[in-house]
């Protein structure tokens, strides 16, 4: 046991499985790498995660293909399915695992999206989850009706209002609204259907929802933003935070901050799970794991990828540079536009970034490729299965997290080894389920409080009118 204090109850670890994404960490140049779009890949990924008793699987969202310097980025995996459609398909071939999709509150409408999430919850028997994101730039907007319209400052107010309207719709049918009594001829009790009538700065929605309450009534809400606005939204409305803070000390600081915010609003501490993203590399010995980590990081940062990372800062053609040599001496070309579109890394001050990188590389004796590996191909947990299991458990028991979102490095088999070798170690330590509870919803699997039931009197018209 690695639990630090004797009086504290042992926490159960929660794990999510992240489908390999469209960035450089997903290795495609390897023979194990299969189609990024064939359903067989998704089925394998989901069924393996379910074999490992993961709480949920997690999918990112594609709104537009990434670009670098005005061209479609071609060095990483490109292309993925529609998030809701593939989750609905996976609902058919899994039985217990949660199905969490990333879906924008900017490029969707609450009436439609809340209905789709309720549909997913019905189809999966209560396993739907929604990672709310607030992407809102004109680059992604170019594929959507609303185009380039949302001020940065309105992103979270729109997300909050979107969530509030969705909640009203999910809450608008009483639990017993469907009667389906053939003899009396009453299919639905109309008194159990509330009219939603919402008028706010972002949305005007008037009407009846189209579905009776789904098994969870609300999907599990996941939030990934790290800003103060993001943390506030999570505190008020989320069930899970998908965080970036897998490092132990940073994780503890974040955990303290967020759980403190929960205390302030009177929410129980365990009603919001904090799951940082984490990668892993296994070996029979520590040395073997380190060697594999080195090999895989070089697959994750090809020579072309290393140059591309630099070009996003330098904003000019650097293809003539040797990636095994030192960083360019020339300064970045500064423009208002910047280089990369549709990706997470944004360099606000290219000259400062270039200087910092040069200093770091020369201090450590790093080549271009080694520098890029140091930030773009880092592996969170590297070691034997026992080491990785114990490290994960230590993070959880000592409140640096409630578990992790595990990201494999190949599609779709990247997590097979984790399920084969790390999961049994966690189970042996009594900190991770050996099976799902029969018929459990995702709320129940995550140990979250159930969403309140609704009777006809609580859905009656006026209760749902908001201004």
């Amino acid at each position: 046991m690695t639990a630090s204090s004797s009086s504290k109850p042992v926490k159960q670890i929660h794990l999510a499985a992240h489908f390999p994404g469209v960035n450089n960490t997903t290795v495609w140049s390897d023979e194990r790498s299969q189609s990024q779009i064939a359903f067989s890949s998704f089925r394998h990924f989901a069924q393996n995660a379910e074999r490992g008793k993961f709480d949920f699987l997690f999918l990112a969202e594609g709104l537009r293909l990434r670009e670098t310097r005005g061209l479609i980025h071609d060095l990483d995996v490109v292309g993925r399915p529609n998030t809701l459609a593939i989750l609905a398909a996976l609902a058919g071939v899994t039985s217990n695992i949660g199905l969490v999709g990333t879906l924008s509150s900017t490029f969707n409408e609450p009436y439609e999206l809340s209905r789709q999430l309720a549909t997913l919850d019905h189809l999966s028997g209560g396993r739907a989850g929604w990672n709310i994101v607030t992407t809102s730039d004109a680059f992604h907007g170019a594929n959507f009706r609303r185009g380039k319209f949302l001020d940065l400052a309105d992103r979270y107010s729109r997300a909050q209002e979107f969530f509030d309207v969705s909640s009203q719709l999910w809450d608008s049918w009483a639990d017993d609204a469907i009667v389906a009594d053939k003899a009396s001829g009453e299919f639905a009790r109309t008194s159990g259907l509330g009219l939603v009538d919402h008028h706010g700065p972002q949305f005007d929605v008037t009407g009846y929802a189209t579905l009776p309450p789904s098994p969870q009534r609300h999907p599990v809400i996941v939030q990934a933003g790290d800003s103060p606005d993001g943390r506030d939204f999570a505190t008020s409305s989320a069930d899970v935070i998908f965080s970036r803070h897998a490092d132990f000390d940073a994780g503890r600081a974040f955990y303290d901050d967020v759980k403190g915010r929960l205390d302030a609003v009177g929410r129980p501490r365990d009603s919001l799970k904090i799951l940082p993203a984490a990668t892993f590399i296994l070996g029979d010995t520590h040395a073997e794991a380190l060697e594999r980590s080195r090999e895989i990081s070089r697959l994750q940062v090809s020579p072309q990828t290393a140059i591309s990372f630099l070009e996003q800062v330098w904003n000019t053609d650097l293809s003539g540079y040797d990636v095994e040599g030192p960083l360019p001496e020339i300064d970045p070309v500064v423009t208002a536009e910047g280089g990369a579109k549709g990706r997470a890394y944004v360099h606000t001050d290219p000259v400062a970034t270039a200087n910092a990188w040069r200093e770091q590389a020369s201090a450590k004796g790093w080549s271009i490729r080694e520098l890029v590996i140091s930030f773009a191909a880092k592996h969170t947990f590297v070691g034997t299965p026992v080491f990785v299991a114990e490290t994960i458990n230590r993070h959880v028991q000592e409140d640096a997290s409630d578990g992790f979102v595990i990201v494999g490095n190949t599609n779709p088999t990247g997590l097979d080894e984790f399920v084969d070798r790390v999961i049994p170690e966690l189970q042996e330590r009594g900190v991770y389920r050996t099976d799902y509870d029969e018929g459990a919803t995702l709320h129940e699997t995550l140990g979250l409080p159930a969403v309140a039931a609704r009777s006809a009197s609580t859905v009656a018209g006026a209760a749902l009118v908001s201004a």
Partner: protein
Amino acid sequence: MSRAPFHLGIALDGAGWHPAAWRVDTARPAALFDADYWVSLVVEAQAAGVDLVTIEDSFGLQTNGYGAFELRGDEVRGRLDALLLANTIAALVPGIGIVPTVTTTHTEPFHTATGIQTLDHVSEGWAGWRVQVSGRSHEAAHVGRREIPALDPARTATGADEQQTALIRQLFGEAADAIEVARRLWDSWEDDAVIRDVPTGRFIDRDRLHYVDFEGENFSVKGPSIVPRSPQGQPVVFVLAHQRVPYELAVAQADIVGITPHSDEHLEQILGELGDAELRVERRVSDPLRVWAEAVVLIEDTREAAAAALAALDELHGAPYASDAVILADTAENVAAQLLRWQQAGVAGVRLRPARLPLDLERITRGVVPVLDETGALERPSDASTLRERLGFAPAANRYATARPETAELIESASR
């Protein structure tokens, strides 16, 4: 066979198309929101060799007609999102076309196109899209983006009411744009775009991906799709149409048009109107338009029993069931005979709407299909690997692949 190939689709909706169908003994009204119910229906259809199923949907709670929204509890109310339901079914039932209804009026064309494309990947080539517009003002209030005055099909049919004509032109114009966007997005990746070329570090050849650059009155879409080209390339587009403007949409953009003839003369008249529409509108699809007829089907062992069953349902409903399509309440043999008459009149297939589910689906699969098979009417190549192939459509050419500069240069240099 000297006859043209004939195809069979089943339209799934709730407990069946008759509003009182949920009350019959065999109905499963409490299961309408469970995946299992739908999967069992599609398994039944697939086993009988039905070519495709469609799944009804609307952008709001069901209501009768196009007037003011009426909340009533004596009919089936509530519906799963058809596109998502289709994806669940597709993951479990191979080898049958799955064609969900998605409206073009309030939805994002990009999401609809990628959702249908994903369905094509999940089903490994059996996806279609039943395109619908939303002409109900209460549905517009679900989005609050614009007001839509109530559509009145009776007044739009004559073309005399200017406001109604403008409305229907607007709704169907937007639908045409949405299909155009979808078709371009479906082609926006060439089949061989993924190259995994390790020496150059490139996963894709980006010259084989294409911006669609669509700009229309209601939306603009840049592209390319986020989804690589799907097994069919172009999933099958189905449009149900009853009058001039929808006929024009079907002629321009659909693979199959569903029509609702009520008699032989009416069928002839509709085919004539479609022919006229073909003269007015440029077709943007390479295969010729297929015409399918629609009917509500209720089957009993005798014609009298079928009439009595329909009367009993009408009695429960409190009024005769009014449908846009003809209601065939009859024996399996007589229903089959009607379908064969349509085939002889030049119709390429039917979309049958079971009055009661699962009952009339089973009576079609176990009663009507065997009769049609005896006559050899149904064309069902068992080795078809996609819905397009099953229906006899040509493999979908990619509009961008054929327009590639080097292809053009090759053609040019060859002709010099």
